[in-house]
Structure formats: structure tokens, C-alpha cells
């Protein structure tokens, strides 16, 4: 039987050398996800270490200014380490520890997943090594320093395009050479089964909280739930609990970079083709021979040529809609939210904010949009300054 399928997507396309290891991971996860002590421990960590539940904030000024639907922000940026990544990492590292692993490895794009992994590894006393594209270590130098402060070793990846996809390649290569004592803490709802399932389950806390919070504040479910999508973990976390609620429109915002009609984008749903890569069948930006495309986005976190298999399936069945958002629109939204609400969002999350700015004014005032603010923008300030031509190194 084929495991881990979402429609025609998903699967376990990995070298034989890793099969025993990922089967062992699946068995352990299936055991611990129903284990009372594991769940209690994770719940305590989420509450007392990560700072959950995160706030659901009514963006009053933004709502008034846009003059349409009511806008709520799910404040994942307020989590410890500044993004939603901590939810998944606490779960996976705790699982690794239960499995007796001594060392964790992870890939990172913008550095948020790397920082979260380094943080939790420090907390739980595990050795930690992070693989990050050389190009990304330059644009996210602050996060590299943060990971090193936390005791992790950061390996700049010089192969390929030197960005996130190459960091993923390198982490798989490292895992294939040492799997007995090492867990791969995968950062998004992608990769071979069971990763898309595990990461989605650990991130689904976002949507569960949104449901409770919005019911309490508004007495009903939102009309739109939206989030940015690279691999798609914050979006999947937000969407998952609402998939059965057909009245809730799900929107993923992917990186259109300099435009989907240029070569410089990472808009997988808009421009990608069905393929098999990084352990999964899904949509990928690639050429006519299946060579994976060198994608581009101002946001290192969305700069990935694929999308998680469950998203690909939600797209196929029209349950979720995926829209491209350009760098320019994201930067404008970054500034807009900073000035309007006093919240500096991650450039990734700004893609979702940008789309809300487009659709909210056209919606009735009694409609509700929830935007997942996946992370905070501190890490992006230098990149935005550079984009705007401002020199902040005085």
C-alpha cells in the first residue's frame, strides 16, 4: 500500500539507505502522538516555553483603512524565537529525544527554522547542526549568528543555487551518512512521508486556536483564512482545522518575486509542474526535462521550488486557492503593516498581508479575514533597507 498520499501527491521517494530510518520515525510518531505523557510534555512546552496560545489580534486600524472585511492577525510572530517554526520543532525534537537520538540536523532558508531547531536543541541538550545555503547565510547573517550563539554549527551549502533547496539536499545527504543517533528536523510540510503529516499535525495548533479565538470574539468562523506558502507549514497549520468547514475560504500566498512572467519567482502552483523531488510527488518549478528550477524570492523562507503535497492536493480539489504575490507587493505590505498597526511582519508573512490588502476592500464589512502572521520581521529589516536603497550600516 502506498503511504502518506494526499490525492496523487506525497509518497516516500528516498534512497533505500533512509527507508528503515523513516519507517522507524513513522512508527515512533504513531506511538507517541497518542501517548499521554508525550502530549502533556509538549503542551507544557508550547504554553510555558513557546508562549502559546498566540494572540488573535483584531487589526482595527488596518480594517478601517481598507474599508472592507474585518481583519484579524494570528500572531505567530509573538512565539518564542519569533515564528511559527517553534511549534513543529518542539514536537519533533521532543520526539527525537524520546527516540533516543543525540543529535539533530535541519535545513533552513531564512533561518527561522534553524534558529528554532538550535533553540530547542539547546533546551533539550542535543547536538545541533544546521545546513543553510551560502546565499542565505549572507542575506540572513543575523540568524546565522543567533544559531551559533545557541550552540549550533551552521554549514553554509555551496552546491547548486546555494539556497533552501540545496540546504534540503545537503541535510538529506548528511542524514544518509549518520542516521542512528541523528534526527532530521524537517522544517515544512514537505519531504517524504511521514514528514508532511508530522509537521502538519504539530502546526495544526495554529488553526485550532484560531477556531476557539474567533468563536469567542465573533461567535462565528472566519470567511477567509490566509497565509504565505513556501513549503507551506504555517498555511497548513492554519488551514488544517478548517478543511471540513466549506464556508471558510483558504488562501495560500506564494512568492511571485519579480513577477510570474519573469524567471525570477518561486510561484509553484502558478508556474510549477507535477514532479517527484525531495521525497515527495507534488508541484515543482522545473524545466521541460525535470531539472529543478533556480527559484527566486526576496524572502529566503519562500525561496523554494516546491510546495507540500497536502497543499498540492488542496489545490487539485479546489479546496484552497493559491495566489502569487510579488516582492514589490510584499515590501509595500511590510511597510504598511508596520506603520498602520505597529507590527513589523516577516517578509514571508507580508505576502499574505499584501493579498489581504487587495481583497479586503472588496469584501462586505461583516466578513472576516484571518491572516497568519507567521513570523516577525526583525530578521528582514536589513534586506528591506537594501531593497529600498537605504544604507543602515552607518
Amino acid at each position: 500500500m502506498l503511504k502518506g498520499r494526499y490525492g496523487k501527491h506525497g509518497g516516500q521517494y528516498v534512497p533505500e539507505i533512509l527507508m528503515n530510518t523513516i519507517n522507524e520515525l513513522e512508527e515512533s510518531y504513531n506511538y507517541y502522538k497518542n501517548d499521554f505523557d508525550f502530549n502533556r510534555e509538549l503542551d507544557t512546552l508550547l504554553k510555558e516555553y513557546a508562549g502559546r496560545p498566540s494572540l488573535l489580534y483584531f487589526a482595527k486600524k488596518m480594517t478601517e483603512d481598507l474599508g472592507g472585511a474585518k481583519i484579524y492577525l494570528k500572531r505567530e510572530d509573538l512565539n518564542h524565537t519569533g515564528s511559527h517554526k517553534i511549534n513543529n520543532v518542539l514536537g519533533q525534537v521532543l520526539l527525537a529525544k524520546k527516540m533516543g537520538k543525540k543529535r539533530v540536523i535541519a535545513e533552513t532558508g531564512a533561518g527561522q527554522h534553524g534558529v528554532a531547531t538550535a533553540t530547542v536543541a539547546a533546551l533539550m541538550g542535543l547536538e545541533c547542526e544546521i545546513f543553510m545555503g551560502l546565499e542565505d547565510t549572507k542575506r540572513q547573517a543575523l540568524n546565522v549568528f543567533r544559531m551559533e550563539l545557541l550552540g549550533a554549527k551552521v554549514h553554509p551549502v555551496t552546491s547548486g543555487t546555494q539556497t533552501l533547496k540545496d540546504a534540503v539536499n545537503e541535510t538529506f545527504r548528511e542524514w544518509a551518512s549518520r542516521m542512528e543517533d541523528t534526527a532530521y528536523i524537517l522544517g515544512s510540510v514537505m519531504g517524504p512521508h511521514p514528514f508532511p503529516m508530522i509537521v502538519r499535525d504539530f502546526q495544526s495548533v495554529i488553526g485550532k486556536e484560531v477556531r476557539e479565538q474567533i468563536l469567542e470574539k465573533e461567535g462565528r468562523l472566519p470567511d477567509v483564512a490566509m497565509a504565505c506558502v513556501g513549503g507551506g507549514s504555517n498555511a497548513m497549520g492554519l488551514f488544517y482545522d478548517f478543511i471540513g468547514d466549506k464556508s471558510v475560504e483558504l488562501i495560500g500566498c506564494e512568492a511571485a518575486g519579480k513577477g510570474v512572467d519573469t524567471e525570477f519567482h518561486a510561484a509553484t502552483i502558478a508556474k510549477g509542474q507535477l514532479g517527484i523531488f525531495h521525497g515527495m510527488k507534488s508541484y515543482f518549478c522545473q524545466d521541460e526535462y525535470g531539472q529543478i528550477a533556480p527559484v527566486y524570492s526576496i524572502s529566503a523562507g519562500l525561496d523554494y521550488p516546491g510546495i507540500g503535497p497536502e497543499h498540492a492536493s488542496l489545490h487539485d480539489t479546489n479546496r484552497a486557492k493559491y495566489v502569487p504575490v510579488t516582492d514589490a507587493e510584499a515590501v509595500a505590505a511590510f511597510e504598511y503593516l508596520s506603520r498602520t498597526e505597529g507590527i513589523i511582519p516577516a517578509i514571508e508573512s507580508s505576502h499574505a498581508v499584501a493579498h489581504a490588502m487587495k481583497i479586503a476592500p472588496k469584501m462586505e464589512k461583516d466578513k472576516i479575514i484571518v491572516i497568519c502572521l507567521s513570523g516577525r520581521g526583525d530578521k528582514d529589516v536589513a534586506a528591506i533597507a537594501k531593497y529600498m536603497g537605504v544604507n543602515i550600516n552607518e
Partner: protein
Amino acid sequence: MSKISNAFKNGKSFIGFLTAGDPSLEKTEEFVMEMVKAGADLIEIGIPFSDPIAEGEVIQRANVRALSNGTTMDKVFETVKRIRQKTQVPLVFLTYLNSVFTYGYDHFFRQCSEYGIDGVIIPDIPFEEKGELMPFSDKYNIDIISLIAPTSEERINKLASCAKGFVYCVSSKGVTGVRNEIKTDLKSIVSSIRSVTKVPVAVGFGISTPQQASDISKYADGIIVGSAIVKIIEEYGNDAAKPLYDYVSELKKSIK
């Protein structure tokens, strides 16, 4: 019986790997013939891929060189056609699944059969997912080579029992590349495989010296050398024919 079995008819088999299009497809044709002259019993031709996750740095670099030369699947097939006019040595492709999937499973296997490819090694498809390829490999009689790793353990039975052509036994954990020392208990893995199948067992990953080749060939039916060959091509470029001939001859002698 597929033609691959011919590679194991005359004693221990030497299997050489190179990346198609490195440094050019004309040179690939020349180097294949040189290895055959030097005694190679089977040639593995790597179809370059942008993200070869099972390869170490040497073969990754060869993939980059080949792709930057404009090497494509269609051009590799054309090269195979020319090679087939000169030799009947068994030929096997090494390719990543996305290349095959995008080309189209039926199209790919049909071409393999028309152009004279005998088998295919796909590092990123495990036993569990092989089902989607089987109808096509069966239809065109192209063997999908089973890989067995030091971590396969209780999976060996399952993997070996459906093996065709030869079993590719991976010598060590990690990715392809030259290793100073191979610590895996290959002897016991090979004997586990032998207890399940009569298909020949070849060992690859990390083999570069005559001593390693000689040691391993004592219990395996063949040895596979990739990175060491690609390294010679990297070093000598267009002039690699002579050093390749010398190297392959030496290794082939060591496994007699």
C-alpha cells in the same frame, strides 16, 4: 534473461560509471569505449540532474558540468545510439526519478528499449514506490536495479527477492564518493542477498583502489566504481581517455 547477465559471465565483473555530457557527449562516447577496451564489463551512464541527492561532491560537480553544457535526456539517448553501433557491452542508466517522470515513464522505457539500454538505477525510488514504474519496465523489458544498503537489514529479503539484472549493494552509509576504509560487514550482507536470489551482486560506493576492489571481489560478483572515474575525468577533461584506460585496466586486473 536480460543482457545484463552477460556482464557476469566471465568471472568477476567491473562496472564503471561516468556522467553523460562531462565534459561533453562526444567525450562520453569516447570514454565509454575506452573503458570497454580496458575490460569494463558493464557501463553505468549517469543522466545529469540538477539535485542529485545520493551523490557526493565529485559526481555533483560532474552533473553541474554536464548540465551547463546543455546535456539533456534526448541528447543522452542519441549518444547511447552511437555507442550501441560500436559495442554490445551491457549499458545501464543512473537517473533520478523526476527526470524519468517528466520525460514520461512510457516514453523513457520505450526509448531505453529502442536505443539499447538494459537497465536503470534510480537512487530515489525505494521498493515501496517502485510499483508505478513496474508496468513500463516489464513492458519494455528494462531491469530496474535493486539497491540494498547497509541499513536495509530485515528489508533485504523483500528487496532481493524481486531483484533483476544485478543487485546494487551499497558499501557504506552516506553518498557516493571515495572512501579510505569500508567498515560495513559486506560479506554478511552479500550472503544474506545470496540466500534469497541468484541475481549477481555488485558492490559500489567508495571503491577506488585495486586493494579495495580485490578484497570486495572475493565475495561479490562485481564491483562498481564511480567517483574515482569521474575524478579522473574532472582532472584530465578532454584528455582523460588514456588515464581512464590505465585506471580501469588496473582495477579490472585486481579483481580477477
